[in-house]
């Protein structure tokens, strides 16, 4: 079996992996290898033909494909080796990866540092345990997006969408543009998780009703989907008997959650946070396994790819430094999620902070006219008023180095109404 050594190995060649690889190169790492199991780089962006990307990163509104191309060109120009059709099938805590590709067969890669950038997968129908038939015609929204945008194939003609997250909303518009009839978007919660812009431009523009506090309770069809039953739900999110109504359709698209894909991380001994589904990291994005870093959707599910790139750049830079010999263990000072805060990243800080620290989290509900507060050792070290905070838009908090100080006191972030 072939063996090679690299400075930084990046697992995943989507927006996170590419940005991490570029940053590692720019930080001086000589040998940076990005591996991606698909035949072309860009990750999920390859199928994102809609716009809304790049406003923060480039000051322009780009499609996902255009955004990906910017980073692919940058990676190429920077001298990052991007190996496609290459899958990482194993990773040890000692940073030894096994990769496999048609071009080079099985290979062992010994890395000075590893960046995990594998992204996430969609929650499937089976995980929801929606009862009914297992007929054809039930897809995750992302898979339907891949069929349409990458393969030029129509999943179906009469569509119901379960879940009002952005992927579901985008597909409502895309299916409508492609000539399908989208009957409704069904959302379990009393509010949508998607951007208001998408509600207006993907549903309202086409007269597609948004059914809040509803869910699909039955899937009907012998071989191919023929219809779904939709019911209202109560405050406990349980279906209310008697409220069922039938929607005749041949396609059901599920947009019901993204799950960070951490199989490989677990085999390497990386500790995962139940709140985010991703690794527990410090402000340098280092996991509990020395020299293994994590960024992008595999760390926590992002809304804006611009923040993915920024986070990944930090991880790539830190990985390069680690590979260059500036090794240090992950920080152990806890960052605590207080009232209203869910899934905060990073979960730890080092005792000595080198620069400003960016925290990201989602709120547990909708907060209006609220204050985001960070405290340490009884002092307030951050405060910002916001008109509105919603779970669908990740909150970023930049803690200034001077305000943070140093030491072992935990930092606590909370929402105050």
């Amino acid at each position: 079996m072939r063996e090679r050594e690299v400075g930084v190995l990046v697992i995943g060649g989507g927006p996170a992996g590419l940005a991490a690889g570029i940053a590692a190169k720019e930080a001086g790492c000589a040998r940076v290898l990005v591996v991606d199991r698909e035949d072309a780089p860009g990750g999920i962006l390859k199928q994102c033909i809609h716009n809304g990307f790049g406003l923060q990163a480039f000051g322009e509104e780009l499609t996902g494909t255009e955004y990906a191309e910017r980073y692919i060109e940058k990676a190429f120009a920077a001298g990052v080796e991007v190996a496609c059709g290459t899958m990482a099938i194993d990773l040890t805590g000692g940073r030894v990866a096994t990769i496999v590709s048609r071009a080079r067969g099985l290979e062992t890669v010994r890395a000075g540092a590893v960046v995990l950038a594998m992204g996430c997968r969609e929650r499937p129908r089976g995980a929801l345990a929606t009862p009914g038939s297992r007929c054809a015609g039930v897809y995750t929204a992302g898979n339907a997006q891949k069929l349409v945008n990458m393969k030029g194939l129509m999943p179906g003609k009469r569509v119901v969408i379960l879940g009002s997250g952005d992927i579901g909303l985008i597909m409502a518009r895309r299916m409508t543009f492609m000539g399908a009839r989208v009957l409704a978007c069904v959302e379990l919660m009393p509010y949508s998780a998607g951007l208001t812009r998408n509600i207006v431009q993907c549903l309202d523009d086409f007269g597609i009703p948004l059914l809040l506090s509803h869910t699909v309770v039955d899937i009907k069809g012998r071989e191919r989907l023929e219809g779904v039953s939709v019911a209202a739900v109560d405050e406990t999110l349980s279906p209310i008997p008697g409220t069922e109504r039938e929607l005749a359709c041949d396609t059901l698209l599920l947009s019901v959650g993204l799950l960070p894909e951490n199989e490989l991380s677990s085999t390497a001994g990386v500790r995962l946070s139940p709140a985010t589904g991703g690794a527990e990291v410090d402000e340098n994005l280092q996991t509990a396994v020395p020299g293994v870093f994590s960024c992008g959707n595999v760390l926590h599910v992002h809304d804006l790819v611009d923040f993915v790139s920024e986070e990944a750049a930090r991880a790539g830079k830190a990985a390069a430094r680690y590979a260059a010999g500036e090794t240090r263990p992950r920080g152990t000072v806890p960052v605590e999620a207080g009232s209203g805060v869910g899934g905060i990243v990073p979960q730890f800080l080092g005792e000595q902070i080198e620069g400003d620290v960016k925290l990201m989290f989602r709120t547990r509900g909708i907060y209006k006219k609220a204050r985001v507060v960070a405290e340490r050792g009884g002092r307030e070290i951050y405060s910002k008023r916001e008109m509105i905070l919603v779970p669908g838009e990740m909150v970023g908090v930049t803690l200034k180095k001077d305000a943070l100080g140093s030491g072992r006191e935990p930092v606590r972030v909370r929402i105050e109404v």
Partner: protein
Amino acid sequence: MQKYDVVIIGGGVVGCATARELTRYKLRVALFEGAPDICSGQSKANTAIVHAGFDAKPGTDKARFNVIGNAMFDTLARELDVHFERNGSIVLAFSDEGIPELEKLVWRGVANGVKGLRVIRAEELRNLEPNVSAKAVAALFAPSGGIVSPYELTFAYAENAVKNGAAIFREAPVTDVRRDGRGGYLVRAGGRECAARAVVNCAGVHADEINNRVSAERIGITPRRGEYHIVDKSYGKLFKSAIFQLPTAMGKGVLVARTVEDTILLGPTAEDIPDREDKSTTAGGLAKVLERAALTWEDIPRRGFITTFSGIRAHCDKDDFVLGEPGDAPLFFNAAGIESPGLTAAPAIAVYLAESVAQRLRAAENPAFDPVRKAIPAFRTMDADERAAAIAKNPDYAKIVCRCENVSEAEIRECIRRPVGARSVDGVKFRARAGMGRCQSGFCLTRVMEILAEELGVPETEITKSGGGSYLVSGRIFGEEEGGRA
């Protein structure tokens, strides 16, 4: 008109096993399966248990064939290169009142010829199964119980049958069977008529319909649905044996049954339904599964759920297997009412039927019979050296298509190319495991469709989930119109 010595109706595990056993003799054998693929009924939707045999009533065919079948699995698994694990069965009692019930099972098992049964107390139970609920106070331990993959076994039997000369036809529903007036039968399958000297009825939930065409000894099949949850294989290490429950006030217990793939099956329920082909799950049924499984497994991890399914048992009003020739239909052999322990009994039933048929037809042995069938080498179970060797021989082994189960392109292509090969996405799923993991074909679906289209020589728009009308896409986004560049 085609003439066969033996026509088998039904391509489940019993039908395919019987086809294989019949090829030990010099007989022209044909199997007709109505669905687009073999193994579409109960054989693919059960708890995958090789029962020890303490449950069946002594003196019944269920008991007899259960115990004989159970003993055949070690050899069978070797010959057919399928997974089999003799991991034991455990029946839990949740109160002291249950202990005499456990002892009754021991006596029943002994009467059926089962070895090694014993009642164990809480401490030994904890040692054997530390993750079983603390509510269990005692258990029956049956070391001869085991687990197998029922569809892997069915496909293996089918491949071996074809290798030894049997013909298997899919999408060929049998719509008529009648006597030909000369001691044989005429079978109408897939719209064509053929002649058979003998017929074997393995038609599952339709076995009564078939029998009642030729025999006045009527059989009545009641479709009885069983629903299941499947838990991800990352939890497989929590249990070693298959964990049963004594019936409680809540009703018949459900199993917590690890599979040979390390996933865990929770279920089944038991509910009579009117529609024999209704494979849907229900909110009530699935909830019941979880409610009862919670007795055995206190902290069922919802985040580990990967999917649900239901299977329809062919429950017979006789409450036992119906095997062999009815008095009024010579050379028509029934294997009807094959519900649990049907999977366990299948190898034994197949041998019994084949021997009966061969004897009645005075068939000579087939010296060319080869009992060995080799599975498609699976990337996921190979060690590093085996992987390197496989890739060197076939570079398609280096292309992982199903990431959750580590299934390579080589295995997918091979499972399509083999006799009785995959012709749909589900066909690939049940043969190569692509799509059986956490993401439920989220990652691999489009690639599996591409490979199927390529191997079968059809456009991707014609690829189905499981044959018939289960089309995956409604068409191309662009019509056939060709335009010039604007």
